């Protein structure tokens, strides 16, 4: 089994998607492989998003300006989709990422991402399902965090509204 097939298999299992991982591996076949050494930067906060990545092996540290330098916002472990939000929104990177140890990744350029997203075949379908599952999990984690923060600040912040939820 290749590294891509292995990552595809784990990613689908992680998200409870019972489709053939070989089809996802096929969808990602044209991606460019890349290796990051320890400490190498993957992206910088504020930069224009032009690609997304599939982390095949290793760890990526996520940091954000304004937060303590000694503590990353998150450490992402392989396999994982990374950087897709910037492509979906066409916005700037919301955080900086760098490798913790050696990392193997696949690079999916913006044009290939949009092509894959719109493909009317099984490869496109399985990629969309994975993307939706990954984003759904991200949203659930965010909502859990919001509830915890709201519970903690209940007296200080009587009202926390998600204005802009539908208007953005």
């Amino acid at each position, binding site marked *: 089994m290749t590294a891509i097939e292995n990552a595809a298999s784990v990613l689908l299992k992680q*998200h*409870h*998607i019972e*489709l053939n991982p070989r089809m996802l591996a096929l969808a990602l076949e044209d991606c460019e492989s890349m290796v990051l050494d320890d400490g190498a930067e993957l992206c910088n906060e504020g930069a224009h998003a032009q690609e997304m990545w599939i982390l095949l092996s290793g760890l990526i540290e996520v940091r954000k300006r304004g937060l303590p330098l000694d503590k990353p916002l998150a450490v992402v472990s392989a396999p994982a989709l990374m950087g897709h*939000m910037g492509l*979906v*929104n066409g916005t700037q990177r*919301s955080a900086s990422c760098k490798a913790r140890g050696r990392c193997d990744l696949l690079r999916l350029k913006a044009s290939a991402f949009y092509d894959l*997203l*719109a*493909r*009317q*075949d*099984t490869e*496109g*379908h399985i990629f*969309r*399902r994975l*993307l*939706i*599952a990954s*984003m*759904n*999990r*991200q*949203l*659930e984690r*965010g*909502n859990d*965090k*919001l*509830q915890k*923060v*709201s*519970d903690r*600040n*209940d007296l*200080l*912040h*009587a*009202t*926390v*509204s*998600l*204005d*802009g*939820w*539908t208007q*953005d």
Partner: protein
Amino acid sequence: MAALKRLSGKELAFRAGEQLFEPGAPADYALLLTRGRLAVKLPGVEGIVADMWPGEIVGEAALVEGAHRGDALVTAVVDCTAVVITAELLDEWRADPAIVAMQVHLVAVLSRRIHASNRAIQRASQPPKEEEPEEESLGDRFRRFFKEGWK
């Protein structure tokens, strides 16, 4: 939406005030709102966290996890109708342009919600600002001058 309605073949109706999902109940379908308006609340979070209008998708976690409904309370604000969307429908009609468009739409919807959620977390995490005294306007300063003299 008409194409999805045709593929799904199942539309549900909700009366104003009715809750669409029971928290914790098994989740095996999402709903695409075709008529009406929904309000979403989260336990522990005061106020309505989202207003939803026709075209919005709710309960989408069922399409990816096939698990149980979350804690969010989704209520019909007025009488509503919604098309039932299942993971099986998406798999069966994977090459249909209406299904592809719905999935792409869902990606955009999730992206918006993640951003809104992140913004709300940032706002809720910030310490409350102390109320700053309102700046006195020039007119007010003149009025005060004629009453009290310049200070």
